């Protein structure tokens, strides 16, 4: 089955970890992930500026490694990211900000990518809240 996965919560929310576990299980079960789309506070789950305590899970890093390892299409909503200060090098330059906290494998793009993924997938699975 083809899944599109949307995440609306930050890396410290249990729902971000649940989304990651779901995504891992989907691939392990032989399914396809057409796209991951991070929206609202989900953009924080893609930020590389998070410093997790050593005895806690670094979910943002795990997301990054998961997306890279499986060469998934990982999209972070650009409007939601800008509003929350999650910027890649290009946007940091554009808006003259000193911090860059988003990098490959993540791409910044618009909400059309969410609709496109939902159209291409058999199921759209959303994760948010606590």
């Amino acid at each position: 089955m083809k899944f599109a996965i949307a995440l609306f919560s930050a890396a410290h929310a249990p729902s971000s970890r649940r989304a990651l576990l779901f995504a891992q299980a989907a691939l392990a079960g032989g399914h396809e992930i057409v796209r991951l789309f991070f929206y609202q506070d989900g953009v924080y789950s893609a930020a590389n500026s998070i410093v997790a305590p050593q005895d806690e899970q670094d979910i943002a890093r795990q997301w990054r490694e998961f997306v890279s390892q499986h060469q998934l299409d990982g999209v972070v909503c650009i409007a939601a990211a800008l509003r929350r200060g999650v910027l890649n090098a290009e946007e940091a330059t554009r808006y003259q900000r000193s911090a860059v906290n988003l990098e490959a494998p993540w791409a910044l793009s618009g909400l059309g990518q969410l609709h496109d993924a939902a159209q291409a997938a058999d199921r759209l699975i959303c994760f948010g809240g606590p």
Partner: protein
Amino acid sequence: MSKSLLVISRQAPWSGPSAREALDIVLAGGAFDLPIGLLFMDDGVFQLAPGQDAKAVQQKDLSANLQALGLFGIDDVFACSHSLTERGLTPPASAQPMDSAAISQLIDRYDQVITL
């Protein structure tokens, strides 16, 4: 044929960017001519309240964006009647009131659902 999407908007317009971000999904879908429905539920029905003064809480007014729904071809706009009653709001002209039985049918009718 395009898959249909129901967006359920559950946050008040003053409670953060959620109301706007739910609406943005709807408008983006409308721009792509996708079959999109919008249901206001729980505190989300406050977005439909008349006489809002967003400036008083230093916010941008969302109602203008709601007016744009028609221009984007979004005609399927609903409001949970229970949520309206609970908050002392009368059903607005811009949204069809729905009771819980109708809402469960509505959710069933759409291929996909996003709740914010």
